[in-house]
């Protein structure tokens, strides 16, 4: 490739030239109390190597025992994803040497996954309105997580070049679900949105099923993004696999940057190398890892220390009966109940605010107000801090309280925003913030009338205009009063008092 060639082609331009095909492998840590094959606890954040035993340390002679809850969770996920549940399947060993692997093999599933051939419908917003895209699921299986390596010294933070490395096996053996899509073609310019919406939908599904709380910042959902480009009408291109894509935003950015990179390569007459790439959150792009041409042979074979899993039809039916209302069904219901359009609901969903809005409405707040707060002011605040809405200290109960105070005139919109500012800043609950910041609306007529008189004296010409019937001039006086009360007055009330004072009525 000539050095004069651009390294990237802008996303939309690239997708005018090429058709993208993507696939996602998503790993989710299950929220079981104990590990996949032993009784060790799974709680996050313990002192290193305190949540271990002979089994998850892979000590000689130790043997795995399958966590029944993990199998149940996997089947429930499979059912929710419209998969076929295998009548009989086995675990397999994936063999490779790495210091974070206690046994130097990972117990996983290979050619006999527990769930296969499902789909998940996701909705993306387009200029023409919401569009539903069906993402087909290849397989869902369970496996064990590895330990966590920390490399100290060296420039790259990688194992090579490090002075030494520390291993924490607390994470080793945590149950993981791996969900693999079939190749998704035809998304065109929406490819990044579809990929992101799929992961968001999966996340919501996991949460709805209660199988994982999906804390992305703790690394409990990790994605590998496969992407290829081809000329319209041509067969699928060579794909790259981008690993370490660990947030919704990164999924979108990983797809975008890969579209931009591959299109530039292909346009310049180069070829895409089938390789593993590593995504870097900080710079929003990936760098080349090892190429698949020297890929490892994992020498999979059926795990001889475990017996096959053969879920009975009765058991599967029992698990099916435990499925909650799934996010897509819930959305249809809420659109009807709240009387909003799919687009308006998509705004709520994309903000990650669905449950919060629902809870807020349950707490007695009008649908419009609940949506306004969570997808407006509060979302901005969460984005500014780089956290999820649910991690803000504001609760549905806070919003209900604020709305009640607005309704009875104790607060106005501007003050309400200041209340939330205070709650987010950790100044306490709604009433505490109001008290400490002195944010109550001035509703004392005497005080307001004094302020009105003051303003009328200051602006005699305006006062004269109003008296002569030019009611629209009242705004200048109301504004002055609002200013002098530092916003803590109800503007409508000020206007009413003013007109009464001057003996005029609204035209």
């Amino acid at each position: 490739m000539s050095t004069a060639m651009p390294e990237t082609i802008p996303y939309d331009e690239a997708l005018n030239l090429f058709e993208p095909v993507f696939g996602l492998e998503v790993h989710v840590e299950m929220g079981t109390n104990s590990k996949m094959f032993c009784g060790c606890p799974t709680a996050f954040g313990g002192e290193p190597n305190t949540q271990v035993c002979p089994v998850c340390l892979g000590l000689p002679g130790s043997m795995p025992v399958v966590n029944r809850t993990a199998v149940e969770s996997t089947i429930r996920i499979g059912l929710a994803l419209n998969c076929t549940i295998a009548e009989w399947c086995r675990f397999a060993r994936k063999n490779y040497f790495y210091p974070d692997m206690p046994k130097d093999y990972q117990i996983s599933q290979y050619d006999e996954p527990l769930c296969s051939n499902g789909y998940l419908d996701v909705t993306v917003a387009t200029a023409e309105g919401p569009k539903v895209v069906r993402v087909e699921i290849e397989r869902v299986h369970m496996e064990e997580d590895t330990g966590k390596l920390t490399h100290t010294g060296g420039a790259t933070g990688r194992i090579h070049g490090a002075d030494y490395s520390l291993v924490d096996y607390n994470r080793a053996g945590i149950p993981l679900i791996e969900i693999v899509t079939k190749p998704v073609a035809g998304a065109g310019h929406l490819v990044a949105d579809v990929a992101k919406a799929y992961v968001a939908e999966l996340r919501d599904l996991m949460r709805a099923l209660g199988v994982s709380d999906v804390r992305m910042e703790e690394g409990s959902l990790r994605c590998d993004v496969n992407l290829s480009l081809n000329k319209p009408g041509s067969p699928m291109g060579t794909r790259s696999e981008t690993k370490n894509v660990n947030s919704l935003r990164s999924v979108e950015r990983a797809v975008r940057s890969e579209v931009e990179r591959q299109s530039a390569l292909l346009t310049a007459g180069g070829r895409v190398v089938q390789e593993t790439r590593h995504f870097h959150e900080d710079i929003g792009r990936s760098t080349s890892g090892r190429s698949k041409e020297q890929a490892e042979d994992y020498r999979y074979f059926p795990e001889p220390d475990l017996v096959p899993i053969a879920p009975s039809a009765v058991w599967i039916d029992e698990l099916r009966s435990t499925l909650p209302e799934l996010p897509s069904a819930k959305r249809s219901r809420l659109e009807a109940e709240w009387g909003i359009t799919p687009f308006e609901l998509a705004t709520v969903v994309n903000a990650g605010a669905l449950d919060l809005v629902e809870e807020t409405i349950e707490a007695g707040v009008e649908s419009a107000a609940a949506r306004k707060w969570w997808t407006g002011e509060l979302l901005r605040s969460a984005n500014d801090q780089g956290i999820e809405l649910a991690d803000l200290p504001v609760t549905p109960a806070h919003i209900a309280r604020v709305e009640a105070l607005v309704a009875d005139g104790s607060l106005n919109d501007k003050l309400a925003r200041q209340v939330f500012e205070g709650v987010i800043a950790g100044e306490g609950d709604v009433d505490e913030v109001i008290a400490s910041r002195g944010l109550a609306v001035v509703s004392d007529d005497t005080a307001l009338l004094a302020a009105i008189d003051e303003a009328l004296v200051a602006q005699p010409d305006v006062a004269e205009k109003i008296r002569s019937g030019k009611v629209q001039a009242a705004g200048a006086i109301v504004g002055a009063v609002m200013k002098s009360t530092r916003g803590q007055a109800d503007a409508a009330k000020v206007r009413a008092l003013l007109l009464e004072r001057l003996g005029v009525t609204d035209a």
Partner: protein
Amino acid sequence: MPITGSDLTRQTAAVLAEAIRTGEASAVEVTQAHLDRISSVDDRVHAFLYVDAEAAIDSARSVDAKRSAGEVLGPLAGVPLALKDVLTMRGVPTTCGSRMLENWRPPYDSSVVERLRAADIVILGKTNMDEFAMGSSTEHSAYGPSHNPWDLDRIPGGSGGGSAAALAAFEAPLAIGTDTGGSIRQPAAVTGTVGVKPTYGGVPRYGLVALASSLDQAGPCARTVMDTALLHSIIAGYDPRDSTSINAPVPNVVAAAAKADVRGMRIGIVAELNGEGYQAGVAQRFRESLAILEHLGAEIVEVGCPSFEYALGAYYLILPSEASSNLARFDGMRYGLRVGDDGSHSVEQVMSLTREAGFGAEVKRRIMLGTYALSSGYYDAYYGSAQKVRTLIMRDFASAFESVDVLVSPTAPTTAFKIGEKVDDPLAMYLNDIATIPVNLAGNAAMSLPVGLAPEDGLPVGFQIMAPPMADDRLYLVGAALESALYDQWGHLLIEEAPAL
């Protein structure tokens, strides 16, 4: 079956247990007698890799204390035992005969050890074995071979040669072995002792350092069929920590050993294991044993098991495949040997140097065989085909057991060979297990018991009995009847003829 003489080391476990229960002898006396015997002969036999005299005496003392306190003692309480060094025992070195684990002290007890402790059996120490149980002679132990008490220049079999030699040298009346392709039965055969490979899943594997998970099975070893049965009943039974262990009642092996009756039983000779290529004396003692069984009232028939011909080939694909994966964890990262950690080597280099230095030639050979057999592109041809053979062997057994109660064969093709004779010829070594391997592939139960000495070399010959899965009791019915008839014929157990050391 009484053994004359007052030497406590020459008694059966059943007799010793009874003596301890009645107060005729204390557990401490019994244990001390065996520790003394070890001190006087083990420099020549080298059955043990580790003896903890203090711990043994301590546990013997606690048995005596229980008896003094009026507690009811178990059927083998206070009886000493030699434990194959492939089973973990908390705080006690567990080397698997390898440099790789030279100083490894496991932090946990295997299921078998837990059950031995619960039964108040006194564990004397850990016995020698081929490295990671790969071998038929103990010559592949990193700590040097054990010697056959019948002829110290000969091998005691393997991989559990240490356990068998300890029994034959009267260093212990009980031992635990593990059998992946014959590692209990072939050592029993060449040392004139009894060994049983229980049904796969009959004895939990938790804490058994895996060679080939789908083949490995721990089992009891002793000098009599009844002692073997008593030990079998203690270590057998379901353990939820081993997913492959069978959740069903243990066959009543002790009652079967006591009954010792083959009248009306149909005993099948496996046509494919009917003495062809066997040493003359081995074939002769086998035929004589069949005549005895017939005389005792059994019907002897010949049964074809055509797929057995492929057993050795399938075994040497499945075993190395599983072993290559099971032994991957020995990488110097977490425990055991670590080589090259001097700041100048990468983690991959440390792993590689450690494995280069820590594993012996036979282990490396099998790891490479297995790695190759599992490689993509070869899997179906090797591992896949071997699994199909395995299914065929199971079918052969199943159809044979439709017409017979047990199958029989010589245990090993020859008597004990000389140390060094086959060590450089892996194929000759592998052929030792030709008769024992089919049982491991199918998951059946099998026993080897001594049936005389080969006239040409005066060394013990083993007789193998094979039973369907979870019909382990049939081994004891037949084995005890044969043992009893031979005892009547000779006036003593064969082991009594072993030379004094």
